């Protein structure tokens, strides 16, 4: 691991701007330093990895659903409360999977951001 000198970002006198644009400028100025960019890159990488893992997992489950119906003979026609299982699986069962993936993602993405905030706040 190479050592980097941790310095405060160069501070310029605040320009008289109003509202969100000033907030935006200060947010970006803080990340202009070399170290700031390292943190930003690592945040982007972890968010992308998280999104790809959740998407991949969801697509695998999605592909598994019709496969189960093909592999297990008679399963598609089995009735639960008068409704064929194939219809229940694709018409109802897939939505909780979508909701669960989304909930997991939102939670973890917020956690990644909190970690970034801690790091970037310490520099």
């Amino acid at each position, binding site marked *: 691991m190479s050592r980097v000198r941790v310095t405060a970002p160069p501070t310029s006198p605040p320009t008289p701007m109003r509202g969100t644009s000033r907030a935006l400028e200060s947010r970006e100025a803080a990340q202009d330093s070399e170290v700031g960019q390292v943190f*930003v890159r690592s*945040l982007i990488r972890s968010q992308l990895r998280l999104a790809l893992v959740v998407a991949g997992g969801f697509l695998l489950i999605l592909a598994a659903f019709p496969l189960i119906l093909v592999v297990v003979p008679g399963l598609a026609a089995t009735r639960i409360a008068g409704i064929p299982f194939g219809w229940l699986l694709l018409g109802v069962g897939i939505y909780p999977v*979508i909701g669960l993936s989304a909930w997991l993602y939102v939670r973890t993405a917020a956690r990644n951001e909190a970690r970034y905030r801690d790091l970037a706040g310490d520099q």
Partner: protein
Amino acid sequence: MNAGVALTAVAVVSLATAIIGFYGLRISRTTGDFYVASRTVRPWWNASAIGGEYLSAASFLGVAGLILLSGTDALWFPVGYTAGYLMLLLFVAAPLRRSGAYTIPDFTESRLSSRTVRRVTSLVVVMVGWLYIVPQLHGAALTIQIATGLPSWVGSVAVVVVVCITVVAGGMRSITFVQAFQYWLKLTALAVPILFIIFVLAREGAEPLSPPAVNPTDLAPAGPYQNVSLLVALLFGTLGLPHVLVRFYTNPDGQSARRTTLIVLGLLSVFYLFPTAYGLVARMYAPDLARSGQPDAMVLRLPGQLVDGMPGDLLSALVVAGAFAAFLSTTSGLVVSLAGVISQDVLGGSVRGFRLAAVVSAVVPLGFAFMTGSLALAGSVGLVFAFTASTVCPVLLLGIWWRGLTDAGAIAGMLTGAVLCGGAMIAGSMTAAGLTPAWLAQPAAWSVPAAFAVTVIVSRATAHRIPASMPRIMTRLHTPERPLATER
């Protein structure tokens, strides 16, 4: 169906839409209000509004009709429409909100520092919007013709008139209220009749006319290629829909954009249970509706066919009202976002320009709708998703996640996608129905990867054109907003 009751239902929905629009007029004053409701809309309101806007004629009428025709194969449509929002949450929601742009062309311009990219994106967005409005107007024409017996053009014209009045009066702020109201109206209008029908069938102990697995027509079922290609279109197409994206700017920050999307996923999941139920009940108790040649009308006809007398009339009227809400909400959402794009690019971004642009963006697709015949609604909307997935989606995804995107790559990618997918759509519409080869009928599986590949290759070849502002913009897209207390 009782024409008087149905007409009353349509009039009530249109009136309610217009009234909420005028109510919104009193609170929207500035240009910012008109475009994005000043970014102060709460997540539940916003999520209902997104749901209201997204659930179009295809979801309300088309999906159920398609399930009646092709059974479990058609269940991929609602799954894809919902899972598209999952992809949007994963890859687009928070960064897009943090970009601070108003429209997709705003985003591509600021990300790539190029006016030309902005113009090409605007062109693509307007094409997507118009393509998407046309099936809504076809749905309105069909509904009015079946419900009241009036000539079908009345339906399309009525939708365009009500939408123009609402958008011109209130802009985005009132649209948010209108859309939120319309989600709940659509859900009620679909849920109450089918629950009542199931209750009646169960009480009478009615025997199914045919088992759900039996194909009511002799149409060939979709093969695995078509299902996969459809899913590609729906998963990646949702990312690029202009009227869906503009909604994310009404969230106060990136994290609330994610929370809003989470709620939207719940609302969509609940909604899509009902078209599925319609499809299943119709397959078992009214398979003859599949042979009428208008499967899209099944949802409108089912209550009258299975429930007799006045209750049947009232339920039919409720479904007609919900269907009309679907056409109105999706069309007005599209018109607002198109008007935003057109007025900023052509008319200088004033409120007056926005109103003029709104009328233009509603009237042009009306002309298209008169010139073209109605296809199966779910199918034609699926094609629009394929077009979006091949044009807007690669630029958006790569712009958010890849530092190497250049303006030349973005333009090349959008044009490739537009030519490939647009060409397939035109070629497909010229071959006789039923004879179109699968790869032409569902182009997404090859046109989307091609657009991505061209975007990446051309960007790599023109790497010297990566804008100097890129690191700053990437930081803005991905870093969380600070709590307000530390910003002041």
